[in-house]
């Protein structure tokens, strides 16, 4: 069968190829000794045992993460057994907290935790969104890195340092300046009644807001950056102003992710201990006034755990810890799922 060469097709062969019969083996030119290298390599084992043991070891280490969570859960349940049995679900609806008589109820702490966290969110979320919008859409390029670095530094400040600053700077500020101002302007709402010593729900909410800002803002930034530029361009091409482009092209697409970021901030606020303990007043009261001292779930543990005499007292505090553990796990799980849904599993920066 000969080839009908197409007109103009290049000849397939340009150089002569050795015509030696293709299927025969060429006898070795010289019988060479097997080189030292080949001998060495052939003597090495298959590595199967090492591979399996290594993989097993890595797996065990990876599973410690599961183990840690399970272990915390188990030990908290085990040690709160007394309190669980004594009070049941009513533990979270009763207002008592009397170590002397052995009467425990966690409602004041739940109130304090929720109030401070929600207030902190109310203050932090608009600010965090503003910073995120500024950094991703409005900020001139050379300023972007320094400012985001600064907000990273904010996230790195330990809780106790925030608390220290709050005790000596924020509290006097609230007591002497901000407090009276609020009474004058918003006193009619009834949220600012009673004596103002600078410590209380409002101060705690403020320091909490400062602390959760970086995490909400940096996650929101990640989410906004994940929105493809084509979305922005599409909206701009329709004649939108810059804010409209942000609102329609970016924010609308990242709604779910931003809610996730906010929830992560909430999770952080719920569990924040040191700074809050230092400025909340540590009094298990439920009061409408934001100047009143309060108590959070985390603070009561921090303050009273080492002095907890008696098994029931200890057990009640552990039960509060258990509640905190479960709530933050649920909030964080939902939040992570939302953030993941938007950034498609690109791991969120751990802050």
């Amino acid at each position: 069968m000969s080839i009908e060469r197409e007109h103009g097709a290049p000849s397939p062969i340009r150089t002569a190829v050795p015509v030696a019969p293709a299927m025969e083996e060429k006898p070795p030119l010289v019988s060479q000794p097997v080189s030292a290298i080949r001998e060495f390599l052939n003597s090495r084992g298959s590595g199967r045992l090492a591979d399996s043991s290594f993989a097993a070891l890595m797996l065990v280490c990876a599973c410690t993460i599961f183990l840690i969570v399970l272990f915390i859960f188990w030990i908290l349940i085990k040690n709160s057994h007394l309190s669980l049995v004594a009070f049941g679900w009513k533990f979270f609806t009763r207002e008592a907290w009397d170590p002397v008589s052995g009467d425990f109820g966690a409602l004041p702490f739940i109130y304090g935790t929720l109030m401070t966290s929600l207030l902190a969110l109310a203050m932090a979320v608009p600010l965090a969104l503003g910073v995120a919008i500024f950094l991703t859409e409005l900020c001139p390029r050379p300023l972007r890195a320094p400012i985001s670095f600064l907000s990273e530094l904010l996230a790195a400040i330990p809780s106790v340092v925030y608390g220290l600053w709050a005790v000596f700077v924020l509290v006097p500020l609230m007591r002497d300046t901000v407090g009276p101002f609020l009474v004058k302007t918003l006193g009619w709402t009834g949220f600012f009644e009673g004596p103002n010593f600078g410590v209380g729900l409002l101060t705690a909410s403020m320091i909490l807001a400062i602390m959760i800002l970086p995490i909400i803002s940096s996650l929101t930034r990640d989410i906004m950056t994940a929105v493809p530029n084509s979305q922005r361009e599409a909206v701009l091409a329709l004649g939108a102003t810059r804010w409209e482009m942000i609102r329609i092209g970016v924010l609308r697409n990242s709604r779910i992710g931003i809610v996730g970021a906010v929830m992560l901030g909430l999770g952080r606020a719920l569990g924040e201990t040191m700074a809050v303990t230092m400025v909340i007043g540590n009094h298990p009261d439920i009061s409408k006034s934001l100047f009143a001292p309060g108590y959070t779930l985390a603070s009561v543990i921090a303050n009273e755990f080492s002095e907890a005499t008696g098994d029931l007292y200890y057990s009640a505090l552990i039960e509060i810890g258990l509640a905190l553990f479960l709530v933050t796990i649920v909030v964080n799980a939902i939040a992570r799922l939302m953030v993941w849904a938007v950034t498609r599993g690109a791991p969120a920066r751990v802050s």
Partner: protein
Amino acid sequence: MSTQPIQAQPLGDPRKPSRGNVLRRYTADHIVSGLAILATIIVLAPLAAILFYLIYKGASSLNLAFFTHVPAPVGEAGGGMANAIFGSGIILGLASLMGIPIGIAAGVYLSEFGRGRLLGNAIRFTADVLNGVPSIVMGIAIYSLVVKPQHHYSAFAGGIALAIMMIPTVTRTTEEMLATVPHAVREAALGLGVPKWRTAVSISLRTASPGIITGCMLAFARVAGETAPLLFTAFGNQFWSFNMNQPIAALPLQIFVYAISPYDEWHRLAWAGALVLIVLIMVSVTLVRIFANRGMLKGGS
């Protein structure tokens, strides 16, 4: 076919926005820009304020005595936080020894063996969730596990509490960094007959090592400032302690105790201690930033 006269558009051509509408939209745009800038300033202001106060109140107390003496008895002037700095070093050393190897190994598993598998995804998710658990919960859990049965606080317990906080962070950053190693490089090693475990250790880990070290430093900086988990494990100590099995002082713990105390002298020490702590942490964060950039360039394709 229509013989009706064409009605003049009564409200103006809808394609041309009215002047009022344009003005409103541009005003809104400017207001929002202004608010965003304002928000940024408000957010950065506390950072400036905190740093300012730390330096203002703490710098003057930073003398040699601060770094070499233990706290003076109540009411007496002078003294320092040397034992707290040392104690923090011990606890952090213990935590790193326990937490970093496990974290890196878990990260190696997730990256080299667990890609796309259900177990891998579950572990990844759990690590992220564990990061959000309040540190005080870790503290009371370790208390119940170690301190209560032993009937005494210990540096060792503090180390464990901080170690379990380090593990999820180290795991995730190790995994992220290993993912930046191009698959072609692994294939080159496998093609040479290098066993999978050796490829993971000598090739993948080595290539990603700048980033992994960065991740460990991040985790270290994060737990260095933690107080809550140490409240009921390491507990604190007014004196030098070299025994892992006894309570030991720690810098953040000492700052907390001093800050809420009624003594001015101790307040002064608290500010100084906070300044030292902040400087150490900020140096770590800055180093991390520098290394992260270099690591990316070196470890990437």
